Structure formats: C-alpha cells, structure tokens
C-alpha cells in the first residue's frame, strides 16, 4: 500500500515536469489538516475536473467546511489531474491522493464526488480507476471506500447508476452529516457492505441505485422501477434545508490562479421566474434568501480569513433578491473603502433597475451580462422569458449611459419551434443594442453574444422536447457566424457535438451506463474540454452498447411517457410540468411565481418545513395552520411524499383557506 511519504517523494520528481504543478501540492491557507490516526471517519471530496475549476466550486467549499467542523471527521480534497500529470502518475504508480495529507484515496472511508454536469462522468470513472477503487459498485468490498455523489446532474443519475453506491438528491448540508453518522454506526457494528447501503437508503434524499431495478418496454422506452427491498423509498424525494445555514467564510486561498478567485456568498437559493428550459430553476425550489445583515457579516469574516479582492453575491437571479439594492449599497459602504470589488452575476433584465445600476457604481465592473435568451416574442413565450426587446434596449441604454462599454448577451438556439427568422432576430437585436452603445459611448461600445444550444433537461417542462439535429444546429450557427459581423460585435458558441452528448446523457436511462463505461475505456475523459472531447469515440461506444443516441436526443416523447428519472422527485408535480409544457406549445406564459402561486408542488410536500420556518426568507406563501397534525418519522421531518399516508392535498386546502 502506498504511503503519503512515498507519494510525496515520487511527486517531487514529477512536479517540475508538468504544467501548473501548483495544482497538485495543497498546503494553501485555510486548508484543514487533522491528525489522520486520531480521526474516526475520513472523507475525500472530489471535483472530477482540474483544481483550477474545482476550487471555484461553492458546493465543495460548503461540504468541506461543514465536515471539518466535526471533531470525528476529516475532509480533504482531490481533483482530476490534467493529462500530463495523470500520465506521469500512472507511469510512477502513484494513486490519486488527497491534497491535504497525500493519503491515497482508497484509504479514505467515504469518497464524495461533485457532479454538477454530465460531461464529468468519464472523469469520475477515471478518478476511481486512478485511485485503485473498483469502478463498479458491485465489485467493491468492505475495505473499499463508500462512493457517493451529489450535485445538479444527480437529479437524473441513471447513466451513472452502477458506479456510485449512493447519490444525494438535492441539498447536501444536512444529509452529508446523516450519511457520516450512518457510516459510523455501520462501521462500529462491523456490518456488511450491503447492510450499509440498506441503512443509507433510509435517509431522506439518498438514492441507492442498486436497491432498485429498471424495466423497459419492448420499444426501448422506460416502463417502471421496482424496489428490491421493502424499506427503500419510492419516489426518492429531494433533500432541502428549510433555512439556508450560515454561509462558509473560511475559504481556502489558492496559491495559483483559479477560475474565480473571490469570496463566494450565496445570497439566495432557487428562482421564481419559471423559465421552462432552466434545470436549476426547477430543481432548486423553493426560493430561500439570506438576510442583508447575514450576507454582510459573512463578507466581513471571509475578508478577514482570505484577503480576496472580490466578493461574488451569487444566486440564480441576483437582481430578484428582495433587498438587492439595499444589499449592494450596504456592501459598498462597508467594504469598498477596503478595496473590495463586488460582482453580482446573473442579472435579470426586468429587475436590473436604474437604482441597482447606480448602487453598483464603483464596483469596478467593465460591463454587464444579460440573458435575453430569445429575440422574438414567439420564442420568448415558448420558453417563458417574456422580456421585450424594448426593455432590453432601455436597459442597455442605461448601462452605456453610465460609462460602461461592454455588454454581453446570452442567447439560446436549438428549440424545435425555432426558425431561421428567430435566429436572425438574435443578430438584429445584438446590432440594435450596439447601436444604442454607439450613440452613447461611441465606437468603443461592444456587444458580445454568447449563443448556447438548448439541451432539454429532465424535471423541466421541456423534458418531452426533442433537440435540434446536428445539421440544424450547424446551419443556425453558420447563419450567426455569417451575419454577426462588424466592429464591436463578437460571437461565442458551443461545440454542437458536445451539446449532443450532454443531451443524450441528461435524459438518459440506466442502459447508458454501458456507453459511459465503454467511452471511458476507449479513452474518453475531460469531455467538457474542447481539446479532449471526441464525439466519434462516444458514437462508437453507443454502437458497441447497441444503443442509438437519437433515441435520447431527437425522439419526440409522448405526453404519457414515463421517464427513467421520475422516481427522483423534485417535488414538482408531473401535472404541473405537463401543463407548463402544453402552455409553452400554446405560447402561454406564466408570471413570476412570487406574484401568483402556480401550485408547482413544492409547498404541499414541504408544508411542514414551511410552517416551522415562517417569514419572508421563503418566497413561497406561508403555511399557517397548526390544525393538521402531521406525523413525523421518529421526531424527524420526512417529506409528505415519503410517508405512508399522503396528507398533502389536505394541507394545501388548509393553506388556501387561510386559517
């Protein structure tokens, strides 16, 4: 077994020969190193891409902080080595190790992967292989670590089902502690690996895929899932925290440049806008906010701990944060004198008010980024983002008037209802925005259009919708490239083949696991990196597995199709998603649900949590009634859908009557 001392000695010779060796050393300010031999449970948190990206991941920082607060637990980090380092490690027989203590990953008790997006899947397999941990869960023994994964992609984890022992569905802050507790209790009584999995399956928000079996129709569509053990939950309801816990502030300060070198403070979780393509907006409900004071306090602490030059006030739609102007003013007043710059990404055109722009003055930004997504009324109604061109132009004018020269606009192409006229409208709109800029700041004005391609995501009202074909996407991109030209205009786009892979995996079923495995075996990794992604290799993997990618990407799904991810419940009712899909076909929009509740399903499922945590931090209406006595599971809250008796309808009725 390789020891940390051996690993240190071996990497000493390798590091001078690889790119950016600072990725592989650890030792940064605020990393937590505990006495290995004194700690009961060791957790390795892995972001399956390079350090530079992983260190900017807030989820990882949150879990690192929470786990290391426990005296009986240590949490350390590991990332995917870049290809040069991987080759050198394999040649020298160095297993994947943690940055903190250089212990090989297979000596940890729990390995937790962060899975925010699908193009990391092959990197997970590669990391397990490099760590010397069996890739298939069924091949792991009692001495192997427990392998878990969480993150946005795990709301449909089926293509990864045989590789991960347990998936966390939803928010990790509380459930990670329960997983550790369950692990410790199991280890104390020296149970079998199967027993551990059975125990984990009892936790709210934990999905143990091996305890279920998937069934398919003759035509290849999904039929249903059956439980193999009685106590496994079906559906598996996502985990949420009723109130956002205090944010972490003791962030690790990297010694080398990373994607975002800043203090990340999540000001709000979730979004009330209901854009139909938006996975994050559907799976992160309900909206919960932190208070202005809580955010300021966190910045104060984080600044003292890190010395970062910038703070990012993060959420899915920051300008929708209830007290956004007050927040920005408070942060500026308190910290601007100390040289801290404020970044407020994800601004919504409707709520980027003149007041907010004024408050952001002095935040030293070079411009603004806005996401109209579509440029015609028709497309805006389909995707439910009804912001008029006039509104965008007015906002752009106000931005340029304040001396900013650069505006970045995000658009999306690829919805099947889209025509070339809709694509042309994107070009025209960008040019119109640029004209506003020219009139105000002159020839220095620029507009950058980031045009991504629509990927229908599970759990959204577009989960039924087919993707554009490669030819259609190429034609639309060619049109944009041809017409989005001229001084001050810049165009960015995605690789259509990568979009196809993401689309296939997003709405994939368990059969895709074989494709993922074969692709990795043939050398697929870093699929999110243009220079590494090889679509031909994936097509070969599909063929070897006897599957057609078009079945997953381009097939129109009938309304009554049962989806292979339906057992993972976001708490949004299928009825709500179906209706929203039908509304999109009819060009009917919904307003912001802070103004009108559309009964998406969140409140009935989490009514008890809402009742326990009243107040304006939740954007869903309050549940006031105390008349209904909801049974609890051993004193612990369990979401309604998991219980034997469904009382959700009754509760909702009570809420509406306004007791």
């Amino acid at each position, binding site marked *: 077994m390789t020891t940390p001392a051996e690993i240190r000695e071996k990497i000493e010779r390798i590091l001078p020969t690889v790119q950016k*060796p600072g990725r*592989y050393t650890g030792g940064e300010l605020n990393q937590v190193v505990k006495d290995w031999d004194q700690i009961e449970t060791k957790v390795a948190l892995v972001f399956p891409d390079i350090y530079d990206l992983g260190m900017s991941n807030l989820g990882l920082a949150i879990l690192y902080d929470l786990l290391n607060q426990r005296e009986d637990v240590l949490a350390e980090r590991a990332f995917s080595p870049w290809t040069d380092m991987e080759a050198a490690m394999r040649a020298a027989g160095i297993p994947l190790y943690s940055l903190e203590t250089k212990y090989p990953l297979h000596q940890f008790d729990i390995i937790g992967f962060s899975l925010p997006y699908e193009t990391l899947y092959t990197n997970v397999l590669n990391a397990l292989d490099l760590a010397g941990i069996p890739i298939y869960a069924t091949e792991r023994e009692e001495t192997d670590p427990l392998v878990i994964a969480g993150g946005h992609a795990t709301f449909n984890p089926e293509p990864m089902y045989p590789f991960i022992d347990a998936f966390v569905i939803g928010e990790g802050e509380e459930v990670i502690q329960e997983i550790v507790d369950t692990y410790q209790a199991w280890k104390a009584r020296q149970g079998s690996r199967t027993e551990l999995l059975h125990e984990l399956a009892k936790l709210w928000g934990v999905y143990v895929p091996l305890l279920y079996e998937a069934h398919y129709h003759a035509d290849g569509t999904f039929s249903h899932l059956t439980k193999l053990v009685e106590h496994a939950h079906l559906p598996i309801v996502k985990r949420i925290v009723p109130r956002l816990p205090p944010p972490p502030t003791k962030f690790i300060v990297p*010694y080398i*440049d990373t994607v975002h070198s800043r203090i990340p403070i999540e000001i709000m979780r979730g979004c009330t806008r209901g854009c139909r393509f938006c996975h994050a907006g559907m799976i992160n409900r309900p909206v919960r906010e932190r208070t202005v004071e809580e955010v300021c306090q966190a910045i104060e602490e984080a600044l*003292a701990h*890190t*010395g970062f*030059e910038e703070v990012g006030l993060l959420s899915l739609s920051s300008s929708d944060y209830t007290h956004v102007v007050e927040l920005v003013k408070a942060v500026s007043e308190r910290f601007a004198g100390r040289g801290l710059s404020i970044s407020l990404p994800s601004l919504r055109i409707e709520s980027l008010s003149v007041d907010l722009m004024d408050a952001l003055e002095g935040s030293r930004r070079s411009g603004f980024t806005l996401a109209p997504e579509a440029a015609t009324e028709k497309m805006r109604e389909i995707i439910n983002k009804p912001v008029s061109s006039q509104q965008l132009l007015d906002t752009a004018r106000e931005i340029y008037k304040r001396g900013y020269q650069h505006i970045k606009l995000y658009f999306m192409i690829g919805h099947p209802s889209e025509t070339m006229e809709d694509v042309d409208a994107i070009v025209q709109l960008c040019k119109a925005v640029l004209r506003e800029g020219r009139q105000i700041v002159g020839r220095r004005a620029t507009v950058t259009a980031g045009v991504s391609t629509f990927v229908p995501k599970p759990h959204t009202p577009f989960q039924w919708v087919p993707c554009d074909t490669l030819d259609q996407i190429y034609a639309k991109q060619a049109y944009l490239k041809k017409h989005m030209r001229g001084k001050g205009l810049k165009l960015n786009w995605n690789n259509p083949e990568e979009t196809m892979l993401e689309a296939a995996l997003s709405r994939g079923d368990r059969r895709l696991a074989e494709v993922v495995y074969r692709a990795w075996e043939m050398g697929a990794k870093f699929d999110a990196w243009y220079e590494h992604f090889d679509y031909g290799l994936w097509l070969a993997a599909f063929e070897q597995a006897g599957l057609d990618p078009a079945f997953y990407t381009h097939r129109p799904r009938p309304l009554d199709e049962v989806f292979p991810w339906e057992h993972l419940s976001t708490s949004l009712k299928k009825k709500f998603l179906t209706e929203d899909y039908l509304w999109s076909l009819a060009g009917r929009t919904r307003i912001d649900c802070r103004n009108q509740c559309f009964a998406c399903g969140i409140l009935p499922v989490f009514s008890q949590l809402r009742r326990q945590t009243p107040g304006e931090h939740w954007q869903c209406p309050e549940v006031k009634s105390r008349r209904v006595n909801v049974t609890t599971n051993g004193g612990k809250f369990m979401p309604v859908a998991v219980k034997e008796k469904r009382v959700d309808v009754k509760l909702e009725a009570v809420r509406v009557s306004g007791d």
Partner: protein
Amino acid sequence: MRVRMRFAKTETMRYTGHLDVYRTLHRTLIRAGLPIAHSQGYARRPKLNLAAPLPLGFTSDWEVADLWLEQPVPLEQLTTAIQAASPPGLRLLDLEEVPLHWPKLTRQVLSSEYICTLLERVPDLEQRIDTLLAADSLPRERRGKRYDLRPLVLALQRMGDDEQGRQRLRMTLQSQEGKTGRPDEVVAAMGIDPVGVRFHRSQLNFSDDKE
C-alpha cells in the same frame, strides 16, 4: 510610508509563480488589515513591488518587496500583523522603513545567490564546475532566444553536502533586467538534468546607489 519586507518562500509555495506570489502577498496584507496605498486611476492597483521574480519550483529565504502605506504604522505592529496573516508558504523575516525617493526595487537588484541540491550524485562535479568556469562563452537558447550564459555567472563553487549527504552547489548569478542568469540553465550547461535538482535562492544583492 514605504516599507521594505524580506520574506522566505518555502516548500509549500514552491510552485506558485511570480504573479501569484504577488497576489498571495497582497492578500496577506489585506488580511493583516493594513492601510495599503493604491495607484490612482480606473485600474486601482496596490502599491506593492517585488524585487526579482523567482522561477517556478524554487524556494527562497531572501525575497524582497516594497510596500506603500497610506498612514505610518509602527514597525513592530506591522511585523506582528503580517506574521499573523501570512499563509503557510510565506514567512516574514524582517522589515524596515526606506526613504520614499529610493529608486524602484527592480532597478536596485544586482545579483542573486542560489544553493542547488543535487538529488542524484554526480561523481565528476568538480570537473564540471571547472569546465564551466574555464569557458569563455556558454551559448545557450531559452524560449527561442540565443544568449551567452557565461558572463551572467559571477561565481560557482561546490559547498558542503547537506545533512542527507546530497551534493550542493552555490552560485552567484547576475539579476538585472534583461541580464538575468538562471541556475537551472547553469546546471543544464554542466550536463545535469535540472529536474533532479532543488533550487533555493539564498540571497539577493542590492546596489548601494540609492539615487
């Protein structure tokens, strides 16, 4: 107030490049809560200068930086605050106040001294040293640029082995803008693979001319 700091860059920060060392130092000063002076204008930069870049992978216990403060702070208080805020890879050695009018730090550096530890034994080390020193010129190429290394080598000698019995070299190389010798180049010119050598800067030599 202009303050000159001398600090060590230790093992933990070996692979932090020049720009990132600068950033790390800046963040240390922010954490220390010091009234750092900034350049004027849109791109507000801290008034902080480093004497001479240290190549990636090198350690040092003689790095020098100049820092400007908005208000004077007693030196003892400065020392305590910076020491408390330093990350594991940086160690403040000492600091002093220097006159505001002194020339830019980078222009005051003359040469650097390095200690090179050989991870693998080179039996004919002395001979290689003599051969290098005897050469009139050492034409080398670095990043597509041809230059003569020989005049940049001001001194080169063997020093006593370290406690693990590894051979060591001590060298003094010129360190002026456009005329900087690199110890890995010297080692390579001696026919030794720099990957098997640990480099450590032991001293920076400054010009006495302060005008």
